[in-house]
């Protein structure tokens, strides 16, 4: 299992570390800017030097790193076991989760983990210990993938388990009803969590490059289908794009960050993009 830790370590090397900022200003040491004093502000934050120069009261505002709980929700349902190449979506998600956990732990923040399919298979409360990475692998190894029934229910159950407001990262292929997904995400959001979705899809699911005659065996207990993919490719891509649009809209509506992930892309690249987008979102959110 050291492999997963090493892999996560390797992935995270070179990435921006400790770059998450609190959306709450004023309790740290890094000066951000001034604002005019209003009654109720702590007197220790008054900038006396500025008062000496201007005869006006200004309160110093600080922007500083802060401890936070990151909670990774990993979908281990049967649909995640699909992989057109050497690696399945679940395997890929495992690396992403491990890398994220490693990255968070390196910042001395705490990481929690929940693995779910048709039910919540395991739950680890946030902690600042590298053992969490070992447990990710352990859990996934011992879990027999089952079809997911309702994402809303699983996310709602998980939100009930979370004690503190956390940053929740959902890694899933989200191959379910968009409304159901939205409900689940809303339940997390309503509980006060920041939510980011890493929508993990295989390149074959995105491009549908099959030729000839194929029999498709559904991983989520659907009926098999024998078809000629060339004939249905256009319909497939239309349906997929419509679904992605709906999903994206639902995420936006629920104030959830949405990051599509193609499992053919290197994990470090995906993480870099994810962190970059998060940083920009945090900055934008902080100034608003």
């Amino acid at each position, binding site marked *: 299992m050291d492999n997963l830790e090493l892999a996560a370590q390797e992935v995270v090397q070179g990435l921006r570390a400790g770059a998450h900022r609190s959306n709450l200003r004023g309790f740290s040491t890094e000066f951000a800017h001034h604002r005019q004093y209003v009654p109720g502000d702590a007197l220790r934050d008054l900038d006396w030097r500025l008062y000496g120069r201007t005869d006006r009261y200004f309160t110093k505002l600080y922007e500083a790193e802060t401890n936070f709980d990151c909670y990774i929700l990993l979908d281990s349902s*049967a*649909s*995640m*076991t*699909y992989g057109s190449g050497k690696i399945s*979506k679940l395997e890929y998600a495992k690396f992403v989760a491990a890398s994220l956990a490693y990255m968070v732990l390196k910042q001395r923040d705490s990481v929690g983990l929940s693995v779910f399919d048709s039910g919540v298979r395991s739950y680890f409360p946030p902690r600042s210990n590298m053992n969490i990475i070992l447990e990710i692998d352990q859990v996934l190894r011992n879990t027999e993938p089952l079809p997911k029934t309702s994402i809303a229910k699983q996310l709602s159950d998980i939100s009930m388990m979370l004690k503190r407001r956390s940053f929740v990262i959902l890694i899933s*292929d989200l*191959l379910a009803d968009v409304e159901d997904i939205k409900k689940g995400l809303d339940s997390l959001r309503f509980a006060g969590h920041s939510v980011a979705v890493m929508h993990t899809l*295989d390149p074959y*699911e995105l491009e549908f490059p*099959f030729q*000839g*005659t*194929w*029999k*498709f*065996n*559904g*991983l*989520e207990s*659907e009926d098999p*289908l*024998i*078809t*000629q993919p*060339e*004939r*249905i*490719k*256009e*319909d*497939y891509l239309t*349906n*997929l794009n419509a*679904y992605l649009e709906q999903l994206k809209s639902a995420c936006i509506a629920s104030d959830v960050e949405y990051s599509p992930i193609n499992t053919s892309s290197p994990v470090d690249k995906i993480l870099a993009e994810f962190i970059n987008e998060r940083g920009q979102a945090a900055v934008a959110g902080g100034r608003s």
Partner: protein
Amino acid sequence: MSFLNPWLLIGGLGIALPILAHLFNRHKVKETDWAAMQFLNRNVRVRSKQMRIQDLLLLVLRCLAILLFVFALSRPFSTGENSSALSGEQRSGVIIALDASFSMEEGDENSNRFKRALDQVKVISESIHPGDPVSLVLLGAEQDVIIRNMAFDANRFRNILFDLKAKPEALNLDNITSSLIGLVEDMEAPQKEVFIVSDIQEKSWNKQISRLRDGLKKLNENANVFIVPINGQPDNLAITNLDLVSGVLRKGTVARYKATVKNCGPNAVSNVTIQCKADGVQVDSKQINIILPGTSKTVSLFVPFHNSGSTRITAEINHDTLKTDNVRRVVAVVRDCVSVLCLDGTSGSAGRLLNAALLARNGGVKDEDYIVRSVPWLTFPTQDLEKVDVIVMANVPEITADQAKRLSKFVRNGNGLVWFGGDNIKASKWNEQGKELLPASIGQAVNNRDELGTGKPIDPSMPDHFVVRPLQSLPEDLISETRFQKHFKVEAADTSVPVLKLAGSDSPVLLEHSLGRGHVFMFTTSAETNWNNMALTPVFPMLMQKIVTYLAGREFEQPRVVGDSISLSYTSQPDANDAVFDTPSKQTINVPVRQYRNHYVAMLENAREAGFYTVRVSVQSAGIPVAVNVDTSESDITSLPEAELRKNLEDTGVTIASNEAELMSAIQAKRTTRSSSRFFIIAAIVILLLESWLANHFMKKRRPDLFKKQKAKQEQKVMSPVNMEVSHDA
């Protein structure tokens, strides 16, 4: 149903190819687990059974197309009177044998027998389907195959017919049927037809009728044989001979020629004028009052020679519908002077007798251009042979090797040698040194004296020989008075011919052979009177003068007949590699010079035209004319009556069609074999098109994306840059 190429049916195994391709590329359903099932359109389901049926249908169509192609290539045909149009087309390979002998030129230019024969060939060609094999043979002395198994194309065939002309040759029926059988066997067709289009000359067809009948019977076993007779007028006059009768061909002399005119037709012809021309200028003209049917008349024509060199002499008759045999040609090589050198091996008696014989003319008047000298044989080494045309050696005991070589060269250059025996001859020496020179090796002297001591008379072995011919005009008792008491027994060489023999024996008295461009005559007896009394009779001067005339004439004085070879001999290797032969129609043929034994020869193997050829040792050199005449055995142009022809050929199975209607109905009646090749090819093409359409249709259903892409590409191509600019501006 039978097949022309049954072995091609093996090609039917070719259906294994699409079957193997089908097995290898059989529609395989590949399987995969799939997560995003919710996006798959379940309305487009493929039933593998349906696909199997489609593929099997295409496979069956492909196999069927291959089988049909194989059938078509195997050339199936059905035979039988009851074959319907559905069983195929009436196809036949056709061989047309067209008589092109010169008898076919009888008639006026626009409607002679050959033109009418060509019209019949055109009628036959109308019954030939495009693509059917056709062979065309011109009959003459030999068979000229003009086209062999050509895929019939009406325009091309007509163009070929347009260029055809009759040949100045006699029809040779000897091997016609065998060569036609060869052509039939060489042709691949479900049914074969042979058309013989000829004027059916009575003389040739009756002469070989039994042999011809057997041949036609055999030919009819391999093909349907049709004979298309071409009728014409039987009247014809022909000049059958033009020969030098007397006179040495010298400048300033007059030579007498004899022209023979034959009436080959069934009617008497009167007032026949014969014109004699020398180098195109009329020099004599004679008229024959009447020539009865089947008879010949001879006239003498006198030709004066004003200049030395080659003179082209023709005898012509006019107003005859078959012009080819109205002219007879001969070439006279006229010399400035004729010089005879007698080498006398006796004490002078032989020389005197020879002088008397050779100069016995015009009352013994001396002629400056005709020199006869008699010298002792021992002076031979000192004699200049440059200006000598003929050497006569009488009783010369022996010659040295150098002398033999000198004499050989003298003869090879186109001069003549006459050899007489006698008591002084040392046979062994002559056999040793003169082996190449003389026409025979000399044996012992044989005594022919009978009880009365008179000896044996002569018997002309070759009555047609130029030298012997005048003897036939002598009274018989005069010839029988010429007696030979003694002669050498000789062993003739392979190349020599006996000209005169002793009566009642095979012992030759006179032999001839050619050496290079010259000739050697060898008397096995003496020129003196001790071995015979020839010198005392008129036979001796006649023989000697004819021999000198013959030897003084160049080799090409002897006219050739169409089909003969013309050769040019060289005594030494020529500078040019090729000799040049100009034909009467002004065509130039280069013939390579080849070494033959110890001299060089250029030979034109087959003179195909009648007229004067010109032979040159090189392009720059002066030419030597050679007369080539037609074979007048073809001049009897009376056709065999149709009834007689039918009677003669009644058991051969040959169909005789004397007019167009008969010909067409005979072809229709005989053409019972039908070929199904085209039907099979059309069926195969239709099935291939159907297969192609179905394959396209099935593919369009299975892979619509491909077709959309193709359509999009086509639309992009249609949008030209100009259109794009316009739309952009808009």
